[in-house]
């Protein structure tokens, strides 16, 4: 589809632009040195700028300290620093090893469960199917599918059509966008009882539907605001040319709303991938996703921190990657929440 190609193209532009940043920075340094020699700028000016930049970099280093500390610990599994037996934050690079990642692949249950259902030996496929990763995928895919199916038509209707009860409904959705997660935790007791009564416990589809339902108000509202920004003149022109309403939706609104669709996609993906409490209560242990798997690691005192870090990093990696490269979409999605009064 051309839609996904465009988004990938934008991301590629961002990456290329970002990769060239050092070149631009080097050029700026050269220019500055030349200007200094010629006396075009004062040393004070340059010193202030360099100082401010250095300060900001230091601040950034402190902010992201937990992250690279984790990476270091994962790479230095089994060493004194990683096990908190030794002074100092970082293990020496000579001690780096991939032990934790080997454990992650073979024994952690992340990719493969070596003993599914306590069976002695199994093929890799059965091993994979009972892993945390497989459980997460089985939870996330229907979450995304249900959400998109429910959100896109509603957002379109709110943005472009008039119908009875549109305004009060929209007002209700706006109210509900203001707080998300807490409602489902507060309702957890009742959700558990209702799922229990309806026999929906341990069903991926039911939990996915629950996630999708929770994601509806915020994401519908978000996508609607994106669609509102598509000029109506495009549609009018297409209708003049004899296009049907559905064709207008398919060929004008949806393609032009693709940044909005991308943001919604990311948010509902995150909702499925990150959620922890509902999954822990509503699914049995053999169906727990990665988020619950990670939590169960910290209660086992036998799991060394290096292995815990490896598990945590690989769990967070896909999400952080997607998020990082789609920042411009996510930011435009979030700034709606702040600005547009």
């Amino acid at each position, binding site marked *: 589809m051309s839609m996904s190609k465009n988004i990938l193209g934008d991301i590629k532009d961002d990456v290329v632009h970002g990769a060239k940043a050092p070149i631009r920075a080097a050029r700026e340094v050269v220019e500055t040195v030349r200007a200094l020699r010629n006396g075009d700028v004062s040393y004070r000016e340059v010193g202030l700028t360099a100082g401010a930049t250095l*300060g900001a970099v230091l601040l950034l280093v402190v902010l992201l300290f937990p992250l690279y500390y984790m990476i270091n610990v994962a790479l230095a599994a089994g060493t004194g620093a990683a096990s*908190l037996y030794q002074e100092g934050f970082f293990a020496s690079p000579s001690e780096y090893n991939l032990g934790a990642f080997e454990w992650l692949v073979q024994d952690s249950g992340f990719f493969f469960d070596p003993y599914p259902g306590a069976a002695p030996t199994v093929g890799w496929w059965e091993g994979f199917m009972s892993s945390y990763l497989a459980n997460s995928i089985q939870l996330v895919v229907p979450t995304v599918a249900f959400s998109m199916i429910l959100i896109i038509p509603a957002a379109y209707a709110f943005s472009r059509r008039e119908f009875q009860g549109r305004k009060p409904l929209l007002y209700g959705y706006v109210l509900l966008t203001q707080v998300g997660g*807490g409602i489902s935790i507060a309702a957890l007791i009742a959700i558990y009882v209702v799922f229990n009564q309806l026999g929906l416990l341990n069903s991926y589809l039911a939990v996915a539907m629950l996630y999708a339902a929770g994601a509806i108000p915020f994401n519908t509202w978000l996508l609607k605001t994106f669609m509102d920004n598509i000029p109506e003149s495009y549609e009018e022109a297409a209708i003049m040319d004899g296009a049907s309403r559905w064709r207008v939706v398919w060929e004008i609104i949806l393609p032009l709303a693709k940044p909005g669709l991308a943001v919604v996609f990311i948010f509902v993906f995150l909702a499925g991938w990150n959620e922890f*409490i509902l999954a822990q209560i509503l699914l049995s242990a053999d169906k727990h996703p990665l988020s619950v798997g990670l939590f169960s690691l910290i209660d086992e005192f036998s799991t060394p921190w290096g292995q815990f870090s490896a598990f945590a990093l690989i769990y967070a990696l896909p999400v952080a990657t997607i998020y990082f490269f789609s920042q411009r979409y996510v930011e435009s999605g979030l700034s709606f929440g*702040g600005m547009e009064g």
Partner: protein
Amino acid sequence: MSFSSENADRSWVAQRLPSKEDQAGLLVLPGLLAYGIFMLYPIMYLVFLSFTNAGGAEDLIRGTYNFIALENYSRLIQDGQFWTSMGVTWLFVFVSVVLKILFSVSLALVFTHDRVRGKRYMRALAIIPLGLPPVFTITVWRQMFSPARFGIANEVYISIAGVLGRNPGPIGWFFDRWLAFMSYVVTELWLAYAFMLIIIVSALQDVSDELHDAAKVDGAGYLQRFIHVTLPAIKRPVWFASILTGATSFQQFLVPFIFNNGGPSRSNEFILLYGYREAFQSPPRMGIGAAIMVIALIFIGIFMWINVRKGQLAEGLSEQ
């Protein structure tokens, strides 16, 4: 907007019945039904539960419970643990929101400052925490506050103490009430600053340069310009973000749950965790748990209402 105008001369009744135009409402219906069934129905059920003396889920399935009206609520009011939870939750909201605002505004000022080169890339890196799963972040911070001598928090604490000429032993961060509380606040700060940063940065970028330049010409210093030019311009978005993040703090569940289950000895049990523990402990007390959650939901509702009202989101609605 709509493309047709056929409702010009319809009778009063016909205007109030669903018409052909209202077919578009069918597009909204599936999502509404899903939300109703999976969210609103459980919430109504929760309210019902709060008026019963139900124990575990088995009680509800077998029907072995009684309607006891407001007894759960009156028992809660007399329960010291309820007031402890309420108090510590609100304290957490106030302390963390104030720190979040100060911290995020300072960060935003640094990462938008004229003299800082490459600030766009720094911002892109600075908001990475927003993209990390909360379970990840919170478990990592739990490990940072490890009571081990060479745990990160202890290493920092002991080296600072060393500079001051003292030589203390390691601290068990989660075994002291206020140290545990402080560790929650630090973690909450790290969880929330990225979101606040995005909102405040985009507000700062809207502050007009001319105003700043005019103030500079008038001889205003950095602090004066901040108070008289920047602050008024970012006040509304910051206020908006504060209410949102205050609501998030009020609903904080995972941090105390993962750190030390709201300990030591239930002193840091935030309101949602309190309700959760009552409902799922053994023996379970779903009725009381539901009453706690209903009270929490009322406060969450107040947050929602304030934000929509004061954030003037609803105004944008009536324009259309």
